[in-house]
């Protein structure tokens, strides 16, 4: 059995930052493995540990600078990694879900996985749509926002909980092969062990360009164009208490007492 996990490096932005054109100035940005993908990797590795003959392969769209992030997934137990990037992707501007799914589908067609796990969304652009788009392109079944997974490989069914709004979960049986988008909280992602980190260095990280996966630049032209980036105007009218922690705590205590909050 083969599980393909989509893994993305995302930008975490400092509390204070400056915008430079259509991006946040590099000085205020730290690269990290997308939180949702971390849970997807963990879920795949747990399936591998529970069954014989499971291979976990990660796939990433991104430049060579993302290799360090990809190695994090390898250190946590993925077997090998694939990264797709070239000048055409670099020049494409905003990669919309369709464009990303097109590239990922080309890799999936080659790898022929039984299960594809993606994060529900990425922490930076937050489209939340790449996984389901990918499923549809592959002609696979899918499930979005999965926070519990019970895999019956012989029966060919993934029994999942989908986390709906308002503290309600939907219980659904999904035929595999399928793409599942994984919600945080589904498991407890492990820290990479020192041994894992060492081993990750020698695991395969294949680098492909678009032509290597059978695509050409015209197929990845995004119809979406980002035209501005700005800090939203704050609507805040909060009364902010000033002073030392003791002073602000005292002011807040007085307010709470006025509101009828007492011990």
């Amino acid at each position, binding site marked *: 059995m083969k599980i393909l996990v989509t893994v993305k490096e995302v930008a975490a932005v400092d509390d204070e930052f400056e915008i430079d054109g259509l991006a946040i100035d590099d000085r205020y940005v730290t690269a990290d493995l997308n939180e949702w993908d971390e849970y997807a990797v963990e879920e795949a590795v747990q399936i591998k540990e529970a069954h014989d003959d499971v291979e976990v392969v990660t796939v990433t769209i991104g430049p060579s600078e993302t290799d360090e992030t990809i190695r994090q997934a390898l250190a946590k137990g993925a077997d090998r990694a694939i990264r797709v990037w070239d000048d055409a992707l670099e020049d494409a501007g905003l990669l919309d*879900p369709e464009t990303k799914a097109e590239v990922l589908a080309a890799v999936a067609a080659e790898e022929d996985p039984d299960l594809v796990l993606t994060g529900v969304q990425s922490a930076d652009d937050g489209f939340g749509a790449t996984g*389901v788009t990918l499923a549809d392109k592959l002609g696979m*079944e899918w499930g979005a926002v999965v926070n519990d997974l019970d895999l019956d490989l012989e029966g060919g069914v993934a029994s999942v909980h989908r986390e709906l709004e308002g503290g*309600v979960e939907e219980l*659904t049986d999904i*035929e595999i092969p399928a793409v599942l988008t994984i919600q945080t909280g589904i498991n407890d992602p492990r820290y990479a062990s020192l041994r894992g980190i060492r081993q990750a260095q020698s695991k395969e990280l294949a680098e492909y360009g678009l032509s290597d996966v059978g695509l050409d630049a015209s197929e990845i032209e995004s119809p979406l164009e*980002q035209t*501005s980036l700005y800090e*939203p105007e704050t609507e805040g009218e909060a009364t902010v208490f000033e002073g030392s922690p003791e002073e602000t705590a005292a002011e807040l205590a007085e307010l709470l007492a006025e509101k009828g*909050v007492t011990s």
Partner: protein
Amino acid sequence: MSVLAIAEHRRGELRPVSIEQLAAGRDLADELGGELHTAVIGGDVEAFGADLNREGVDTVHTVDIGEEFNHDVYTQVVTQLATELDPTVLLMPNSVNGLDYAPAVANRLDRPLVTDVVDIDAEDGLTATRELYGSKTETTIDVHAEQAAVTIRPAEWPTIETDGDAAIEAFDATVDESAVKSTVKGFEEVGGGDIDITDADVLVSVGRGIEEEENLDIIHDLAEALDATVSGSRPLIDNGWLEKDRQVGQSGKVVTPDVYIAIGISGAVQHVAGMKGSDTIVAINTDPNAPIFDIADYGIQDDLFEVVPALTEQFQ
């Protein structure tokens, strides 16, 4: 040049985003000089259809197939509706279920998809506003296509209360059952504890800023001093530091206490959706730019590890 908005319902209730979409859809339809259509699929379509007949809607399409949401059915039906009605903009909710079929529909219709839109206009081509990096920045996106699919963030548009005079028409969709490869078996309420946070008058709510599980002691101490209930934002529940039924937010509970004290909570939109109806909101957070201060009534922009114990002391 029309707009088609797909309604959402669950367990016999139309969800509010179904009506909010109509406000967004009416504005778009006016800008495009066209009609606003809405459609509801499955469940008590007659009652839902009547409820969707609000001011500004031209036609309500009812599709009497199934009871609850099934993404395979929705994908097929919405694709057929959009093919038949050929709307310039296809609106769907940016909900968990919306995101479970909208991308597949957009793919089948070969339309670009813009998700989680907080503002949109069609005056000079379609331009959508989205947030990036959590809620720290906003961005505008120009859609270079004749037709598009868009998912609308819940609670960003007003609800239309006035009844309309729309035509209500049954739509005859065909579902290929062999392509239905998922079966909804039922629903489950999340639990874990025995406290109902929606009953609390005062909530001491804690977020990622608490850093470590053992630091929660200062939160419990404060809650005890205030005779309040402890709740939390998603990361704490994901970490298993608080029971699932103490989660405030879109995927957790919606709470409306007299006083909501948000400690170390940045105020991501998913969290705010669950607590913005609180009477008085107090935020304690180191980051003065944290979005929680936008909706707070009172704030302390300082280190929670100093402020919280000092506050507890005030009540002891």
